[in-house]
């Protein structure tokens, strides 16, 4: 693909993904049903996957979809089905308290955005040309080389989370 066309398409694609991410975010925060909120989250994850594509990292993009959309959010879905809202029905959320939710949501959204925007404005990075796709071998070498500690740490965190979940599950069963 010639560079001009790439340039021409990149901007609308960026806009589209941004829109998807924002729409997903608003949906996640704004809907009263947990399942719909989850749908918003999934939409956001899709948008992020698109951003990865834009950065010429299709492997990451598909992994994002495979792991986060295909597995993690499905598990969240499972969790929603197992829990109950205040009305005794699964999947409901606490009714909004005098618009406080909107304010809180706005704050959590805007504060990091403001910080990030400030940082970007201050240390504006030079626009770099899009690099060709990083090969998987490179990726693997990095993970097994310089970043091996971080990589292992992440797996330890995941293991701890899993063990905790199992523990909680058993506690609950015993309590019955």
């Amino acid at each position, binding site marked *: 693909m010639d560079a001009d*066309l790439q340039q021409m398409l990149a901007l609308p694609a960026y806009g589209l993904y941004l829109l998807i991410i924002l729409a997903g975010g608003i949906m996640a925060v704004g809907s009263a049903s947990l399942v*719909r909120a989850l*749908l918003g989250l999934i939409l956001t994850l899709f948008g992020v996957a698109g951003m990865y594509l834009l950065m010429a990292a299709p492997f990451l993009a*598909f992994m994002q*979809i495979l792991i986060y959309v*295909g597995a993690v959010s499905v598990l969240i879905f499972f969790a929603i*089905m197992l829990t109950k809202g205040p009305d005794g029905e699964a999947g409901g959320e606490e009714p909004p308290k005098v618009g406080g939710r909107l304010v809180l949501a706005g704050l959590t959204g805007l504060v990091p955005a403001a910080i990030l925007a400030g940082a970007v404005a201050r240390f504006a990075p030079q626009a770099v040309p899009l690099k060709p*796709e990083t090969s998987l071998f490179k990726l693997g070498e990095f993970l097994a080389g310089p970043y091996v500690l971080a990589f292992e740490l992440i797996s330890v965190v995941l293991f701890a989370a899993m063990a905790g979940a199992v523990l909680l599950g058993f506690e609950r069963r015993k309590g019955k």
Partner: protein
Amino acid sequence: MTALLANPLVQLVIALLALLGFVGLNGLVLVWMERKVVGFIQRRPGPFEVGPHGLLQPLADALKLIGKQLVTPRGADRPLFWLAPILSVMPVPLCFLPIPFSPLLTGMELNVGVVLILAFSGLNVLALCLAGWGSNNKYSLLGAARAVSQSVAYEIPLLLTVLCIAFQSGSLNLNVIAGHQSGILHWNLWVQPLAFVMFFIAATAETNRAPFDLPEAESELTAGHHTEYSGMGFGLFMLAEYMYMIIICGMAAVLFMGGWDGPVAPGWWWMVIKIYAMLAAMMWFRWTFPRVRFDQLLNVCWKWLIPLGLANLLATALIMKLVG
């Protein structure tokens, strides 16, 4: 004109359109084929009245389904309820893109084609969840819960077996993987028979086909997640099921059977023959075996397939290290 055709974007659009046609046509053929296979196994002729040997029966069925009223159950979450069937078919053409029918007949050659297929076919389970949740029906909800545990569990052995092949070929590009196996003796099937068997079992479970059709287990959950769907809502689910069968069989053909390679005259027809042979085997399973119970289904996965898959992966890695 040639310049325009050379443009990858144009190629992509053409590929997508062609795939849509392929999807529709194959859906109809598969429905007909399944009914004929079950008929013959049960010593009946199967569909016979519409068209010669019932060939037009799926078309008539599709027309009927389209013509039916779409009913939304009371208390259903309407948008989610109708999003689900659409979501289940939407990724299908995307999943077909990286499958090479021949070196030239490839929708889009991707370095990470395998991952793309696995990622987007995983969306189907989301559709089942939404269907189960949105229907406001207890049977559907149980079906959705089953679909989730089943698909999350069986994705692991599926990935493990795919990883074995990726180790061997050193690539996630389906064209490259297929290219490595020219000549029937070089098929991965002979090198990795265990992986092939596990892949096929996991694929059957991932596509919710009998004997692993727990999410719709009609004798327990009436129709599971699509209990409440009428007309084309149900039609789309069914279409998606058949489409995922083709995709997964196409993947198996490329990963284990050399794709377009064949004993004589290699070409896309070999790919079609292999896919349909595996589909026939899947139908044969379905119409022979009883359904497993839900805990047995998960036991097979966690106690057999995953350990075996891990062992197989380890062995593959070791051998690759020693040999390569």
